[in-house]
């Protein structure tokens, strides 16, 4: 069995290798191969899952050690896998959603001449992501961690000829690198503290460590959090996610909604032992989570670009997860649960958005949509289900997972509990608002795309979305997407409807994960019923307000100036501008001045020395004036000096 774990990673890796080095001759079959291998690893996952269910709870963890990666004295980095329930959950999500999106992409990327490479990258991503969740030590996890970063870089910038895409990709990678500092420092701390960074070595010892050097453990916690912030686009490292939408929509769905961005949640949950031992770190985590879930939600409200709106929502949803994870044993399970459900409905939503764009000449501005439900029914339905799920409509998966998190937040207890709970509720309200907004602006209202506005987002940039290739510009004529695209959407829709309920049947999910993450019911000051009721209320409120604003009266095709907050929110609450002014500009000035310094000062000293020798030489040279008598003078003078010196030596 455990050999299969290796294959799990190997399959997509193989695919990536073949597709990226294969050359043009693979162009025709490439996408199929990629999809096939993704499917393979999903099947393997399913097999392993079945096997795991077969075993009894205690002995479900599989491990497999391949080889020693870096052996240097104390520093022994192994390539070994550990498949427990937590990993299993992720594996299923990744391979499952991954496969679906491969299939979706077949249709979506049909007209792109670099489709082969696209699938190569997707496979590469799957491999890296699986590596991340299967690693049995932090060092290997780090490899996967950076691997997904690379994949995301490549995929965001897939349309490299679009400067915006290239820039977005670069930005994503850089911001993630900042996070990676956290992870690498964490690993170093682990190594210097425990002499190892393998889960199995570290976690048992955390307890005694926190007794002796509590600060260090807390430090590790903080560093891991930093890493999580980078990967999961949490404040203050969230700025890249919005731009990441430059990538093809399947990518946004898979990487920047369903899987990669949730790696942070995985990291924190996986490191539960450490965080449990470092309350301060946990506080930081929940704070980040709470802030982000509000932040993301607000941003989501203001965006007119459908993908960016969804990106904001992703941010906010992950904020929920992070917060939950920060709550400790109370929340881990629900964090993951929400992660999975979110994986379904958010992926679904993105694919829906993609389908919409597909039918609208890649228009992304919702103000140019409207009344599409007649034209693309399947998309409408699936999208709608995803919508209901995310706002937490009773009975759908979002309802269960999010509700649990809010409860857990309250259950944290004390003022902290109240604050977090309130935040969560507000978040829920706003979620309801902006998702309704998206829904209304896209599928309802009058058809604002009719008046023949050209469809390209911005004329100067040659849009390379494949649809544009074949459809003439001008007034779009919406149409339903091909089945290769709709089928995945449907499947995901199913997921987003039933997953939550399935998990909650006699809290199967809790039981499933408990052996790994541990679980404890906090003492909630408010009963579950109250919480649910509250959630319902805010939900209705949100929807209502949205309807009042966007449903009842017509939506202006050109964005109104909007309030100060709106404008700020459109610009990601000015966070980007801050980065730009402080980091980018500042950096430019710094480098420029350093370049100057290097030339004038550091190099100047050297050249200066040379020059001064030359000058001295020139001056001394003049003494050689060609007159015998002056030579004689120097001789006489020299003699005098020598004589005097000799006498002096005797004198002293």
């Amino acid at each position, binding site marked *: 069995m455990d050999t299969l774990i290796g294959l799990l990673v190997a399959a997509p890796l193989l695919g990536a290798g073949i597709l990226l080095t294969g050359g043009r001759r693979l162009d025709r079959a490439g996408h199929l191969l990629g999809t096939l291998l993704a499917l393979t690893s999903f099947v393997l996952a399913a097999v392993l899952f079945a096997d795991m269910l077969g075993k009894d709870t205690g002995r479900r963890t599989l491990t497999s050690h391949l080889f020693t990666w870096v052996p*240097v*004295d104390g520093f022994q980095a192994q390539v070994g896998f550990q498949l427990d329930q937590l990993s299993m959950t992720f594996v299923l999500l990744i391979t499952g959603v991954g496969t679906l999106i491969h299939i979706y992409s077949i249709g979506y990327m049909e007209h792109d001449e670099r489709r082969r490479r696209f699938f190569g990258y997707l496979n590469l991503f799957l491999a890296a992501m699986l590596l991340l969740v299967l690693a049995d030590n932090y060092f290997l996890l780090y490899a996967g961690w950076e691997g997904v970063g690379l994949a995301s870089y490549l995929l965001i910038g897939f349309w490299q000829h679009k400067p915006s895409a290239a820039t977005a990709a670069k930005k994503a990678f850089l911001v993630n690198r900042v996070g990676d500092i956290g992870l690498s420092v964490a690993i170093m701390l682990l190594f210097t503290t425990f002499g190892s960074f393998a889960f199995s070595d570290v976690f048992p010892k955390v307890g005694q460590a926190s007794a002796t050097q509590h600060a260090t453990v807390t430090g590790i916690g903080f560093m891991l959090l930093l890493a999580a912030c980078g990967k999961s686009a949490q404040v203050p490292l969230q700025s890249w996610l919005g731009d990441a939408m430059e990538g093809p929509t399947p990518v946004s769905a898979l990487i920047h909604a369903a899987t990669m961005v949730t790696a942070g949640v995985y990291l924190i949950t996986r490191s539960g032992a450490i965080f449990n031992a470092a309350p301060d770190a946990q506080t930081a985590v929940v704070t980040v989570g709470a802030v982000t879930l509000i932040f993301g939600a607000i941003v989501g409200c203001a965006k007119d670009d459908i993908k960016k709106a969804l990106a904001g929502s992703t941010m906010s949803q992950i904020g929920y997860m992070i917060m939950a994870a920060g709550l400790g044993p109370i929340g881990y399970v629900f964090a993951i649960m929400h992660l999975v459900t979110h994986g379904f409905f958010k992926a679904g939503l993105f694919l829906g958005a993609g389908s919409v764009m597909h039918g609208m000449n890649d228009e992304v501005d919702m103000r140019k949509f409207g009344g599409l439900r007649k034209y693309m029914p399947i998309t409408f339905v699936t999208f709608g289900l995803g919508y209901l799920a995310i706002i937490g409509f009773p009975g759908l998966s979002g309802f269960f997972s999010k509700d649990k998190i809010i409860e857990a937040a309250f259950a944290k207890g004390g003022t902290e509990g109240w604050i977090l709970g309130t935040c969560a509720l507000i978040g829920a309200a706003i979620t309801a608002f902006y998702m309704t907004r998206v829904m209304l602006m896209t599928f309802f209202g009058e058809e604002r795309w009719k008046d023949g506005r050209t469809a390209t987002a911005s004329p100067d940039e040659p849009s390379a979305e494949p649809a544009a290739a074949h459809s003439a510009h001008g007034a779009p004529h919406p149409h339903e997407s091909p089945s290769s695209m709709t089928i995945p959407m449907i499947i995901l829709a199913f997921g987003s409807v039933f997953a939550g309920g399935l998990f909650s049947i006699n809290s199967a999910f809790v039981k499933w994960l408990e052996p790994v993450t541990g679980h404890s019911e906090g003492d909630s000051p408010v009963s579950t019923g109250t919480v649910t009721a509250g959630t319902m209320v805010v939900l209705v409120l949100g929807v209502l307000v949205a309807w009042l604003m966007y449903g009842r009266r017509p939506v202006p095709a050109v964005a109104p100036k909007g309030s100060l907050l709106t404008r700020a929110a459109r610009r990601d609450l000015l966070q980007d501008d801050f980065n730009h002014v402080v980091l980018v500009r500042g950096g430019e000035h710094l480098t420029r001045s350093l370049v100057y310094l290097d030339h004038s000062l550091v190099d100047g000293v050297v050249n200066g020395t040379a020059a001064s020798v030359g000058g001295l030489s020139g001056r001394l040279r003049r003494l050689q004036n060609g007159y015998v008598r002056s030579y004689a003078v120097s001789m006489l003078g020299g003699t005098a000096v020598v004589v005097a010196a000799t006498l002096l030596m005797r004198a002293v």
Partner: protein
Amino acid sequence: MSFPILTVTAAVPAVGAVVTAAVPAARRSAARLTALAFSVATLVLALVTMARFDTGGARYQFTETHTWVKNFGLHYDLGVDGIGVVMVALTALLIPFVMLAGWHDADPLEDVNPNRRWRPTQGFFALILLVEAMVVLSFEATDVFLFYIFFEAMLIPMYFLIGGFGDRAHPGGEEEAARQRSYAAVKFLLYNLAGGLIMLAAVIALYAATAKQLGTGTFSLQEILDARAAGRLHLVTSTERWIFLGFFFAFAVKAPLWPLHTWLPNAMGESTAPVAVLITAVVDKVGTFAMLRFCLQLFPEASKWATPVILVLAVISIIYGALLAVGQRDIKRLIAYASVSHFGFIILGIFAMTSQGQSGATLYMVNHGISTAALMLVAGFLISRRGSRLIADFGGVQKVAPVLAGTFLVGGLATLSLPGLAPFVSEFLVLVGTFSRYPVLGIIATLGIVLAALYVLVLYQRTMTGPVKAGVEGLSDLKARELLVVAPLIALLLFLGVYPKPVTDIVNPSVGHTLSDVHKTDPKPALEAKK
């Protein structure tokens, strides 16, 4: 008397140089093939040495000992420890690729050929082989003076390679190029010569010291170490420090360490890409290697005394080099500054005085050699195609030459030490090694990885992505020969990135020896320490 494989390894390229130089002017391709053949032969020998190196065996193996000049205490002592054997292998490995990459670099443009006996191609390859021979010898030398001799002598062929076969693509035009080239060459030579001469003074002082205490002065590493072990030789603290500084200065110039780095951008910028690789990937390694081999072994106390300053300088190099790389307009200069940053890492690892640090540093030397070679050579192909080194002149290359762009990206990712590619392992080892003894420096150095990402990605974005710039449309993709150069390097990067064990296994024991020389042991994990 066993087979003197070390001597042979060095002799083959030396002979090759003579043979190549003797090839008639007209027979250029013959000259190329001859040179390539000799370099491959060297590679084979180096690999054999590496294979036969017994990791469990004596510290120095395949040793040869002959007295060369008695009066100078100069011995022809050769021997390799794990570090040495790896470095020799690296050198021997890179040279063939350098040659292949520079296959036509030295062909005389027509009509500038006043003399029939003027044969640049022969000269070019002969000089490369000569450099190889001297570098190999300086990796093998276990006699301080012997090392010094080759350390200095290698400057001359290097100098002619830089000054004589410079980059023809210069923004300032042909004669500006010539001017810059000879400036760079002279700067390179004088800088290193100055370093070397300071070292000469130190070498002489060392001789005087040994002569005073042992009766006869000697430079044999073995004799000196034995004498010290036996307590017959004990340098006065101040003397030891001065001599150490003399040595270190020379190595720091060669390495190069901030603020002695300014010759490198000129040299690498003005020379052809293969020569630039020769400089940064092969010749400069002698400096860092020598720190490990001589500074630490001969002057343990002084080394420890100087460590804080050196570490700080190393960290400055890392950050400073990276920042300047970000600010460059010229592709090759950018890579040069990136190298400065990487050498900072290497020196950091060496003087962190931990097994991770030093193994990492050694590994880093290898990986940096390969990765820079990959990146620089591809950059060279790119530059020669476009006829310009300015980043601004490129854009959208991936559209017209996807393979070239791809390889370039891989090289870049290696440079920013992405996991899965070789440099990551070494860089992380260095960082961990540093962190475990100097946490603050470790963390500051870690910032380097962000900056690395910055300059690599910016370079890639500006040159490869975006709409196709004017002047780029026509560029052809990599030719077979060029792929032959790049593909193996990339393969190697991947292999060492996933499975560096073969190298680390050889290196680790030697690092252990070096550490025991300076009486240092790795810090215990905090938990054990507490118990």
